[in-house]
C-alpha cells in the first residue's frame, strides 16, 4: 500500500502488518525482513516508513485507570483524541500534548514529544511509569526507570528502533474544566519575544507564533499565547465546565495546486494572523481544542501545500546562542525569499536523560517549507547554522537530514547503538530514516 506521513514526503510502497495480530507479528519478527512501528503517521518524514510497517491502529484499548491518582495504562495505538474524549469529562488531561491530538501514545513515546508546557512539565516520557515492549526476538519486556533502565531511556525518543511499544502506563493531570485561561500578547521583535518567554516562566503553557517574513527592525515580530487550565471559579457562566461547544471542522478535500502557494499567499496570511490577534494582554477563556489543536479544526490542512508535500524544519539552539542563531536563520529565510506559513517558537526547559531526546534548554523554532526543487540545498545551508550554534534537528520532523549532521548533533548516538545492539541483536527495527541517518 502506498504510504506517506503527514507532510506527504517521502512516499513508500509498504506491506501493512496489524500489530494487534500476534500471529502476524511473530511471523514478521521471525523472518529476515526488517520492520518499523507506525501510529497515526503524524510525524513529518520517514521515521515510521519502510517496506514493512507494523500498524498499531488496532492496538487501541484502555487497560486500567486509577481514578484517585489518574494513572492510565493503555495500548500503544490509543490516540490522544480518545484520551481527551473519555477523560476530560472526568477531569483529567494528558500531562503533555503536542499541537495535534491525532497521534498515538506509542508515537508520543517514540518521539519523546514536548508540548507548550515543556519548560515546566518536561517531555511526555517524563510522565511515563512503565512501557511494555515487544522485542525483535519475539519476547515481551517491561522497562521503566527502575527496570531495564537503559532500554527505557533508549525507547523514550528512540523512534521505534528498540522494539514495538505494546502498552504504557502514565499519569494524567487533574483539571477543573475543559477550558484554558489564555493571554495573547504581541511582541515587536525577537528580543521582545524572548523577554516575554522569560517573563512567562510561571505560566503552565506558552508558545509564540512568529512572522517569518518580517524584516529589519521587525525581525522576529510575533504573538505569544500563554495560559493555564481554567479553575472552576473561572468558568462561572458555563453550564458544564467540561463540555465543549461544538464547532464545525473545515475540510480541505483536495490538494491545492502548487502554484497557489507563493510568497504572497504566505505574506498575506502572516500579516492577517498578526493583526487578527490584536488583543494585547487580554484574558480569554478558550476551550482546549482551540488552545492546543487549532490546526485540527482544518482537516487535512497538510494538503494546502499541494501534492508534492512540504518539509517541516524544527531545530533547537542552546539558550546562550539562541537569539543570535535564530536571527541569522530568519535573515537567511528572508534573503532567499523562502516563506513559511507556520513558524512556531518555544522556550524549552532542561533536557532529560533519554538517549535520542530532542529538547535541550533553549529556543526551538518550527518552520514549514513547501517542497520545491531547491529546498533541500537551502535547508542544508540552514543546517550549517544550526550546527555552528550547537543545536540539533527534531527527528520526528526530519525527512532529509544528512547522517553527518545527525552524528555531530546527537552526541549520544554511540550509546544508543550499543543499547540497540543489545536489545535488537538482529537489527529488525529499521526505518527509512534510520537507514538514511546510519542508525544501524
Amino acid at each position: 500500500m502506498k504510504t506517506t506521513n503527514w507532510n506527504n514526503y517521502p512516499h513508500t510502497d509498504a506491506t501493512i502488518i496489524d500489530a494487534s495480530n500476534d500471529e502476524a507479528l511473530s511471523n514478521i519478527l521471525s523472518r529476515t525482513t526488517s520492520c518499523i512501528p507506525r501510529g497515526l503517521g503524524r510525524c513529518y518524514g520517514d521515521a515510521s516508513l519502510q517496506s514493512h510497517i507494523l500498524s498499531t491502529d488496532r492496538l487501541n484499548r484502555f487497560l486500567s485507570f486509577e481514578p484517585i491518582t489518574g494513572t492510565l495504562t493503555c495500548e500503544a495505538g490509543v490516540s490522544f483524541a480518545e484520551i481527551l474524549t473519555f477523560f476530560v469529562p472526568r477531569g483529567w488531561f494528558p500531562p503533555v500534548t503536542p499541537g495535534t491530538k491525532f497521534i498515538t501514545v506509542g508515537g508520543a513515546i517514540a518521539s519523546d514529544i514536548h508540548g507548550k508546557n515543556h519548560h515546566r512539565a518536561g517531555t511526555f516520557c517524563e510522565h511515563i511509569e512503565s512501557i511494555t515492549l515487544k522485542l525483535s526476538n519475539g519476547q515481551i519486556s517491561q522497562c521503566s526507570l527502575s527496570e531495564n533502565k537503559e532500554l527505557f531511556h533508549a525507547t523514550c525518543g528512540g523512534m521505534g528502533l528498540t522494539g514495538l511499544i505494546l502498552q504504557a502506563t502514565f499519569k494524567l493531570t487533574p483539571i477543573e474544566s475543559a477550558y484554558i485561561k489564555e493571554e495573547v500578547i504581541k511582541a515587536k521583535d525577537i528580543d521582545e519575544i524572548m523577554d516575554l518567554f522569560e517573563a512567562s516562566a510561571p505560566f503552565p503553557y506558552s508558545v509564540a507564533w512568529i512572522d517569518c517574513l518580517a524584516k529589519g527592525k521587525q525581525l522576529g515580530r510575533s504573538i505569544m499565547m500563554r495560559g493555564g487550565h481554567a479553575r472552576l471559579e473561572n468558568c462561572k457562566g458555563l453550564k458544564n465546565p467540561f463540555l465543549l461547544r461544538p464547532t464545525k471542522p473545515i475540510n480541505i478535500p483536495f490538494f491545492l495546486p502548487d502554484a497557489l502557494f507563493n510568497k504572497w499567499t504566505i505574506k498575506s496570511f502572516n500579516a492577517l494572523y498578526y493583526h487578527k490577534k490584536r488583543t494585547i494582554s487580554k484574558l480569554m477563556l478558550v476551550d482546549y481544542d482551540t488552545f492546543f489543536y487549532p490546526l485540527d479544526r482544518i482537516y487535512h490542512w497538510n494538503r494546502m501545500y499541494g501534492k508534492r508535500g512540504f518539509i517541516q524544519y524544527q531545530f533547537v539552539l542552546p539558550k546562550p546562542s539562541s537569539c543570535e542563531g535564530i536571527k541569522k536563520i530568519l535573515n537567511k529565510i528572508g534573503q532567499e525569499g523562502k516563506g513559511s506559513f507556520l513558524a512556531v517558537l518555544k522556550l524549552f526547559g532542561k533536557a532529560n536523560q533519554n538517549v535520542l531526546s530532542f529538547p535541550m534548554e533553549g529556543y526551538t523554532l518550527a518552520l514549514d517549507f513547501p517542497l520545491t526543487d531547491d529546498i533541500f540545498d537551502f535547508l542544508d545551508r540552514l543546517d550549517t547554522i544550526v550546527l555552528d550554534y550547537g543545536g540539533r534537528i527534531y527527528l520526528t520532523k526530519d525527512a532529509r537530514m544528512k547522517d553527518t549532521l545527525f552524528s555531530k548533533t546527537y552526541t549520544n548516538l554511540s550509546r544508543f547503538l550499543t543499547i540497540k545492539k543489545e536489545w535488537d541483536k538482529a537489527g529488525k527495527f529499521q526505518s527509512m530514516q534510520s537507514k538514511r541517518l546510519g542508525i544501524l
Partner: protein
Amino acid sequence: MARVLILGATSDIAKALANEYAQHGYDLYLATRQSDRLDPDIKDISIRYQVNVKAFEFDATAFETHASFYNELDPQPDGVICVFGYLGDQKKGEKMFSEAHKIIDVNHTGAISILEKIAADFEHQKRGFIIGISSVAGDRGRQSNYLYGSAKAGFSAYLSGLRNRLFKSGIHVLTVKPGFVATKMTASLKLPPFLTAQPDTTAKAIYKAHIKKKDVLYVTGIWWWIMTFIRYIPEPIFKRLGL
C-alpha cells in the same frame, strides 16, 4: 440499567456492537468460546463507558449447554444480539460433509437452539429484543457459497417467523443482512471498497435500526438494491451465471 447479551463476542462486528451499546449505557454480557480472550476488551469498554461488562463461555454448537448457559445469566438480559457465524470453505464442504455440517450447525442450528430458549423467556416476560446477524448471502443461493448461503437463508426465515410470533408479545426482532464488512472473516478476500462497510459503521446502523424498530436492515443500504436485483433474475438465466 438495560443489559444486552452478545453471542459470538470475539467477532469484529460484535466488538463494535459492544462499544456501541455500552456508549448508550447498556451493561454487557459477552459470550464466546475461550472467553478469557475478551479480558482486555472488557477492561477497555468498562473504562471508556463506565458500564458493567461480564464474559461467559458459550459455544454455538454445544447445543446441550444452551439451556444452562442462559439460565445462569443473572439478572437476565433485556435483549440479545446473535452475531456468531461461520463462513467455512464451500469447496471443502462440497467434498466433506463434516464441513457442510459445521457451516449449517453454527449459522443455523446453533442460532435456533439458543434463540428459542431466549425467545421463550422473553415471550413469557413480554419484553425484550432479539437481533440476528444473518447475511445477504441468504437472499439467493450462488455456486460460490451456497452452503453458507443456505444456512443464512434458514436463519433469515427463522427470524422472520420469530418476529411474526413475538410481535403480539411486544418483542422486537431485527434481521440484519450485511453485505461485505471488513472483519477477520473477510480479511483474506479482496472486497470492493465502495461496497464494504466497517464494523463500527455496521454497529451504528444496527443500533439505529433497533431504536427505530426496523424489521430488516441491509448494511450498507445499497445492498438492498443489489439483492433485489439479484433476486429478480429469472432462474433460467441465473443458473448460467458464474456468481
